[in-house]
C-alpha cells in the first residue's frame, strides 16, 4: 500500500492521521493545483539541471544526466524552474493552463 484508496473508511486509517509509510509524497498528485504550466524550449536549454535541483516537487524528469520533461501529475505550476533557469538560456516559459484547454 502506498496511499489509501479513495473510499477508505475510518477503520482502515492509521491512528492519529499518521502516514505509516515513507516516500508517499510521490503518490500525492499536486498537478491539479496548477494554473500555469512550464514549457521548455529544447533549443535554448543548456541542460544545467537548475530546474531539476530547485523543483520542490521533483517534477522535472531526468534520464542519463539529461532533462527529459516535466511530470504534470506532480508539477503544481509554482514557476520556480522558470525563475531559476539562467537568463542567458531562458528556456522555460510559464504558460497559462487555459492555453492548453482550447
Amino acid at each position, binding site marked *: 500500500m502506498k496511499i*489509501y484508496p*479513495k473510499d*477508505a*473508511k*475510518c*477503520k482502515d*486509517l*492509521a*491512528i*492519529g*492521521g*499518521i*502516514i*505509516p*509509510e*515513507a516516500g*508517499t509524497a510521490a503518490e500525492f498528485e499536486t498537478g491539479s493545483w496548477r494554473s500555469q504550466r512550464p514549457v521548455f524550449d529544447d533549443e535554448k536549454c543548456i541542460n544545467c539541471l537548475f530546474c531539476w535541483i530547485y523543483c520542490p516537487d521533483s517534477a522535472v524528469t531526468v534520464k542519463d544526466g539529461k532533462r527529459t520533461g516535466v511530470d504534470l501529475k506532480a508539477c503544481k505550476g509554482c514557476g520556480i524552474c522558470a525563475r531559476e533557469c539562467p537568463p542567458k538560456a531562458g528556456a522555460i516559459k510559464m504558460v497559462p493552463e487555459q492555453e492548453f484547454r482550447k
Partner: protein
Amino acid sequence: MADKLIVAKTGNEAMAEAMRQINPDVCAAYPITPATEIMQIFARFVADGQVKTNLVTVESEHSAMSACIGASAAGTRVMTATSSQGLALMYEMLYIVAGLRLPIVMSDVNRTISAPINIHCDHGDTMGGRDAGWIQIFSENAQEAYDNLIHAVRIAEDPEVRLPAMVTTDGFIISHGMETMEMYDTARVQKFIGEFKPAYSVLDTEHPITVGAIDLFDFYFEHKRSQVLAMSKVKPVILKVAEEFNKEFKRNYGLFEAYCMDDAELVIVVLGSTAGTAKVAIDRLRASGVKAGMLKIRVFRPFPEKEIADKLRSARAVAILDRSEGMADTGGPLFAEVRAALYDSDKRPLAVDYIYGLGGRDINVEHIKSVYADLDRIARSKKIDKTISYINVRE
C-alpha cells in the same frame, strides 16, 4: 515501605508524588501559579535522581506542550502540569495532541482565566479545553488528585483509547491545602500502570512514518470521526481501570460519585472540591430528615450522559453547581450538559443552575444548604422561578 503510607500532603505535593512514582520519560513544563509547585517539587526528584525523567524547561506553555508532543510522538511516556493562562496558551497544541492520539497526561490546577487577573480557583480554564479532545477528570481532594493521575496514565495509554488526559484539582483550595492521604508502594504503582507501549514512534527508523501531514477534504473527516470513536471507548476503559485499581489499592472510583443518592429527592451536581463542602451540608440536612443527595462528576470528558440521566431519574429537583461561566447567558457548561442529558429521559426532574465561586469566591455549607432550601421550594411548587442564580455575589 509499608503497603500504604499515611502522609500529610497538599494537592500539588500529591500530584508531584504521583509523577515521581509514574516516572515518566519526559516532562516539559513552564511555571504558573498555582501549578508551579508540582513541577518545582518534581524538578527536585529529577535533580536527586529519584526519577529517570528528562525534564525540559521551556520558554512558554505553548512550547511546553509542543515539546511534549515531540517527545510523545517519539514514543515516550510524557507528563506535564499547568494552570489557567498556561492552559490557555496551550490551546492550539491541546487539539494537536488529541488529533495525533498522543496519550500525554497533564495536571491542570484549576485557576480562573483573566481578565480581571486573578490567581484563584474556578473551572474556567479546564472548560476552555473541553472540546479539545482530552479526557478530563476532576478531583475532590489531594487523595483523588494522586489516584486520578495514576488512573489517567492507564486510561490514556489503553490501546483502545490513545487519547490525552487532564486531571484537575481546585487551585489553592486543594493544590495548597494540606490533608492526610494514603500513598501506595512505588513498585506497585509502577506495576499497575505497566510499561508504556506507544502506538507509533518517529524515531523508529525501521518503520518510517509521517506525523502531522496535511489532511484535506478526502480523509480529515474520517480521522476526526475515528477520534470520536476512540472517545466513545473511554468510559468502559475508565470503569475497567477503576475496578483493577480498587482490587489493587482498595479505593473505589467510577464516572461519578453518588452521595446519599439511593432515596434522594433533592440533588445537587458538582465538580471538584465543593463536593467535600456539600457532603457536610448533606449530612446535616439528612440529620433533619431532608432527602438530600449529590452527584459529584469525576469524568467530565467523555461526558457520562446516560449514566447521569439515569442517576437523576428519581430526583424531584436538581441544582447544577457551575464554577465557571459559559458567557452564553444560559448558565454554565455543566448545567448545559446535565440538562441536555436529561432531555431524553422519560422522567425529568426540574433543573436549575447556580454559578458560584468565580475567581476563588468562597462557598460554604450555609450556601449549599440554601440551594437545597431552593430545591425544596421548587419540588413542592413544581415551578421554577429562576433558572440561573449566582451564589454569594453582590448584585
